[in-house]
């Protein structure tokens, strides 16, 4: 663990980490979001000595309103971090996530149309068909399944592959890369990162030679400021697409189905009234948020009494803000009909998740098709799902049974 920097007052150091606090390590039947939200019992801001995947300390901003102020102020709180590249000992940004305004807007406006609400609507039929095929396969092979392995991951990866214009036959391979990258050890992670870099590079090269109608062709043909994107920009965009949309969507589906398995009345409600799923999934996104946004201070700044120094990391964990009682009435209770639900599962500020419209649709469609096809389900007797916190919160070993 790194020493606490001298400018951090000892009384502002909190005993908390999204990586090591109770409930963050893999925990049978845990509730990592509730565990993380325990930080709301403490001060508005404090210092955590170990709060990133690479073992760095961060300030932790706990209140929803304060997180919004940080994330809406990219001049003071920069996103320039090169987290993917640093695993390889390199320092290029994932784009647009790790680019600050004003340049950020150039990339963002170029990519927005590819993931706009309208474009996502056009993709819906394919997404729905994918969910249906996977679920029907599960139903044909028995009366229980491992939700993450048999449904959530293949579903998310499949849609990603379709977006890249690739066929399903490499699905297993992709799931493996994603798993190693996100959950692997110190050897697996850089190896997976290198594999993904090589894959994006060769795909870009292939699309330059033989353009088709897909994401990577768009990227290699795109221009900013009157010039084509260079190789590093193409890589930065491709890598972000890879790392951002797999685990997150799959984890959301897993947490949601686990909740519905354990809350039969809510399951019955959504089964009876599928039109409620659109709103219900927002409430589940709020309660089961999976990511923390980290920013880097660009200057010394006093924030709610914390003497933040230039270069300090500032964490805005969505799962904490989304249970702030000043923002949400009865935050620990799930109210599937909650209205005016301004949760920040997709962050706020200029880096609002560019894939949020697609992710929302994927989750809705997954729940709609699951509830329409699978009989009333519960956690299989004798099995216990394992939850974990960390870089992206998640769940595994979720075995559902409808015998």
């Amino acid at each position, binding site marked *: 663990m790194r020493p606490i920097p001298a400018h951090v007052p000892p009384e502002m150091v909190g005993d908390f980490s999204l990586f090591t606090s109770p409930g963050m390590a893999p925990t049978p039947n845990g509730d990592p979001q509730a565990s993380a939200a325990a930080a709301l019992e403490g001060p508005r801001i404090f210092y955590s000595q170990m709060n990133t995947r690479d073992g760095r300390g961060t300030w932790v901003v706990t209140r929803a309103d304060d997180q*919004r102020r940080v994330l*809406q102020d990219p001049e003071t709180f920069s996103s320039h971090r090169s987290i993917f590249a640093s695993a390889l000992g390199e320092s290029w940004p994932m784009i647009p996530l790790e680019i600050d305004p004003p340049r950020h807007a150039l990339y963002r*406006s170029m990519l*927005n*149309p590819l993931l*706009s*609400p*309208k474009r996502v609507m056009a993709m819906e039929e394919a997404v729905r068909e994918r969910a249906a095929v996977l679920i029907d396969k599960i139903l044909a092979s028995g009366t229980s399944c491992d939700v993450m392995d048999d449904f959530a991951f293949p579903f998310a990866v499949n849609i990603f592959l379709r977006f890249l214009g690739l066929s399903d036959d490499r699905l297993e391979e992709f799931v493996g890369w994603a798993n190693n990258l996100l959950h692997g050890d110190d050897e697996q992670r850089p190896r997976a990162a290198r594999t993904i870099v090589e894959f994006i590079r060769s795909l870009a090269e292939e699309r330059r030679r033989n353009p088709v109608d897909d994401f990577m062709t768009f990227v290699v043909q795109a221009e900013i400021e009157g010039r084509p994107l260079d190789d590093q920009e193409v890589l930065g965009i491709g890598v972000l697409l890879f790392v951002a949309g797999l685990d997150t969507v799959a984890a959301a589906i897993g947490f949601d189905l686990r909740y519905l398995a354990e809350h039969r009345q809510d399951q019955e409600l959504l089964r009876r009234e599928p039109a409620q799923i*659109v709103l219900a999934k927002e409430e589940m996104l709020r309660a089961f948020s999976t990511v923390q946004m980290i920013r880097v201070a660009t200057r010394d700044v006093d924030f709610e009494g914390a003497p933040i120094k230039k270069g300090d990391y500032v964490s805005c964990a969505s799962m904490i803000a989304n249970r702030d009682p000043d923002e949400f009435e009865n935050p620990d209770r799930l109210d599937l009909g909650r*209205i*005016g*639900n*301004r*949760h*920040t599962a*997709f962050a*706020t*500020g*200029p880096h*609002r998740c560019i894939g*949020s*419209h697609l992710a929302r649709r994927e989750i809705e469609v997954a729940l709609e098709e699951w509830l329409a096809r699978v009989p009333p389900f519960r956690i299989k007797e004798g099995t216990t799902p394992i939850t974990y916190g960390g870089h992206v919160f998640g769940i595994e070993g979720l075995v559902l049974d409808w015998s």
Partner: protein
Amino acid sequence: MKIKVHNDICQGHARCAATAPDIFQLDDDGYILPGDIEVKPGDEDRASVGAMSCPECALEIEE
């Protein structure tokens, strides 16, 4: 009732339009169109919920 639209704060979450697409109109990328919104009588509740749903607080309700 009027909704003051802060386009500089809108980040294209499209939550307002998910609640009331007829009241909150978006551009092709999903960001709210410029201009404050005069809410028609009878639409106040849906307009309020739509405005409250904005994660950025870009929609200000003016009675």
